[in-house]
């Protein structure tokens, strides 16, 4: 790798996709062929597991059909197996495996990445080439991901999050963990330099030393929050999903047993789906630890697939605290954050949604501590009183503007919780009847404001006031306030936003690490 300074490269216009493509191709052609690096050879083999999973699923469904037709036929099928059949099946499996390995090798040869002065480049594709380019100043966060098999092999992949609204995360992998570590620190350093507008050089030095294990690196650090397994299990059991499922199952099973109906395999499959969803929750969040590091809040979690996500607090647009009804007695809370570009992911939107939850369950004190690390000040004097009101208060309150009486026609139950406050630093909305919710958005981050009124609201003199936040699973929408209130909020929030954007109210990462005491 050679040292190169950032050339005076012309910034591609963000709003013109065709010229971005051209610019990208141009930039790509200037990268020397020797700079491209390949991934670990196991990469395609492990990514082809989907082929095997599909085969297994097909086999399972055939078996299911056979079983439903009756066990005598199964027995017939088993006795019908001859040596020739075994040989044919084995030969087929061998041929398929060879084909998979050949395909893997071809795929692997075409995959490469490079850290160039213009950004991170990735290319792949056997028949049609794909070239992806993330500019340094657009990188939002960098995350290390390790599945169970790569973990055993000392491999991992690195996920680069950019704020693009159409693209997905760029995933580089698999690579040796030492290399991952070197890449990660390099990417974080350059990305922050590029955002600050200072000069930087790209130099991916060879990593030395023993096999890098993220757990070792964090062993010395004291986690800011650690999720006990018991609490995670408890929160899942009290989540309501399980109760609903049990209720539904009982509703199906009881008549079946009483009316002497047949046993359905569909039911088993449905139950399996629920178990899989619950397991997914458990697997994702098992052993979750939050660290405060110089780069931001680091979230490490997962049982079979361990992910490490570093979130620069500057990039957080809003925070939501949520309490399902059954958690009320324990006073547990869930903390969700909103980051630009966090929802768009190769995985389904569901997995992205769960990843935005950085504290799946914690006590009120834990949740408020975390909130404090993200938001320096909520702009009120009496914090205790404010958060009592915000989290569990109902009715008219010292801090929150209440809805007018006419809102009771539209919101008979929710009205007492529905309240909002615009402080000098944040816009907070508390909401929810069974599930309590508090959404805190920062003035400097919204993309637009919205006021609306439907026909029924118009009759009652009500309206809805909304902050348009970046795409994600967080919304900030306060419905059924009086129309005068709505205009008041809108005018006030316009001023707050104008001011916040002008002074760039967010603290820098250095200020942040000073404040939370990790500098």
């Amino acid at each position: 790798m050679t040292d190169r300074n950032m050339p005076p490269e012309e910034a591609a216009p963000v709003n013109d996709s065709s010229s971005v493509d051209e610019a990208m191709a141009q930039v790509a052609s200037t990268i020397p062929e020797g700079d491209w690096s390949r991934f670990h050879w196991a990469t395609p083999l492990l990514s082809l597991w989907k082929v095997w999973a599909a085969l297994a699923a097909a086999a399972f469904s055939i078996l299911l059909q056979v079983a439903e037709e009756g066990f005598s036929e199964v027995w017939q099928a088993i006795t019908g197996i001859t040596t020739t059949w075994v040989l044919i099946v084995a030969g087929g499996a061998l041929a398929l495996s060879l084909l998979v390995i050949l395909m893997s090798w071809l795929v692997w040869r075409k995959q490469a990445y490079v850290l160039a002065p213009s950004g991170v480049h990735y290319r792949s594709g056997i028949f049609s080439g794909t070239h992806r380019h993330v500019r340094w100043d657009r990188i939002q966060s960098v995350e290390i991901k390790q599945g169970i098999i790569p973990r055993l092999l000392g491999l991992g992949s690195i996920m680069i999050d950019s704020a693009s609204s159409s693209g997905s995360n760029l995933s580089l992998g698999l690579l040796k963990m030492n290399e991952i570590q070197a890449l990660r620190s390099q990417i974080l350093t350059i990305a922050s330099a590029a955002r600050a507008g200072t000069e930087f050089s790209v130099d991916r030095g060879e990593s030395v030393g023993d096999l890098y294990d993220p757990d070792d690196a964090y062993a010395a650090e004291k986690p800011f929050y650690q999720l006990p397994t018991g609490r995670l299990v408890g929160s899942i059991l009290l989540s309501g999903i399980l109760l609903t499922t049990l209720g539904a199952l009982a509703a199906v099973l009881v008549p079946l047993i009483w009316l002497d109906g047949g046993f359905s395999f569909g039911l088993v499959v449905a139950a399996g789906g629920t178990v899989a969803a619950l397991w997914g929750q458990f697997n994702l969040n098992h052993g979750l630890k939050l660290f405060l590091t110089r780069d931001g809040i680091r979230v490490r979690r997962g049982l079979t697939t361990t992910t490490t996500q570093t979130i620069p607090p500057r990039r957080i647009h809003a925070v939501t605290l949520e309490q399902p009804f059954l958690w009320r007695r324990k006073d547990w809370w869930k903390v969700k954050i909103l980051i630009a570009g966090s929802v768009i992911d190769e995985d389904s939107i569901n997995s992205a949604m769960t990843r935005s939850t950085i504290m799946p369950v914690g006590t009120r004190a834990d949740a408020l501590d975390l909130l404090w690390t993200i938001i320096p000040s909520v702009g009120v004097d009496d914090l205790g009183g404010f958060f009592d009101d915000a989290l569990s208060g109902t009715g008219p309150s010292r801090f929150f503007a209440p809805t007018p009486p006419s809102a009771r026609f539209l919101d008979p139950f929710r009205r007492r919780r529905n309240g909002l406050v615009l402080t000098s630093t944040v816009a907070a909305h508390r909401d929810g009847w069974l599930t309590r919710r508090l959404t805190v958005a920062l003035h400097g981050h919204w993309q637009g404001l919205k006021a609306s009124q439907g026909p029924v609201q118009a009759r009652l003199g009500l309206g809805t006031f909304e902050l348009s936040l970046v795409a994600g699973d967080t919304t900030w929408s306060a419905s059924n306030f009086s129309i005068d209130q709505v205009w008041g909020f809108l005018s006030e929030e316009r001023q707050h936003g104008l001011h916040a954007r002008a002074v760039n109210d967010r603290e820098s990462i250095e200020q942040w690490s000073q404040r939370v005491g990790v500098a």
Partner: protein
Amino acid sequence: MTVATPLAPGITFTRISTDHAKVRALVGAFWFVPVAVILIIAAVAWSSLLWLIISLAAVLVLILSVTAVKVRAVYYTGYHETDEELLVCRGIMFRRLDVVPYGRMQEVKVEDGPLLRGYGLASITMETASATADAKIPGVPRAEADRLRRRLTELGTTKMEGL
């Protein structure tokens, strides 16, 4: 040619071209006519098919009322440029007011279909990084759309702000 909305008292908005109402009426007719033809054929040819006739009639009523609401909304749609933000008000039955700061603009889109072009109109959309904040001004004269696009692009780049 100005509009006001109870959502933003004291602000006068520039109304979009009323020709846009004709465009919307034509779009409504585009859906209305074939359904009406099928309804007539069905009623004449198969007089026993009661449910087909009822459902077609329901669809007709739906198309008519939606078109009426959309056409009427044109007369209450307007935009207002401040030094910092673009304000767009829309609708009368479902009123909406969008406020988008110029600095939040990611992309300006000017679109015209054959119908819009026929009346010399275009619609202009200012897109942001939010899925819900999109200040769309439907049906302004082409020259005005181009002026807006230039102005928004210019203001958007000078006031370019990070997310």
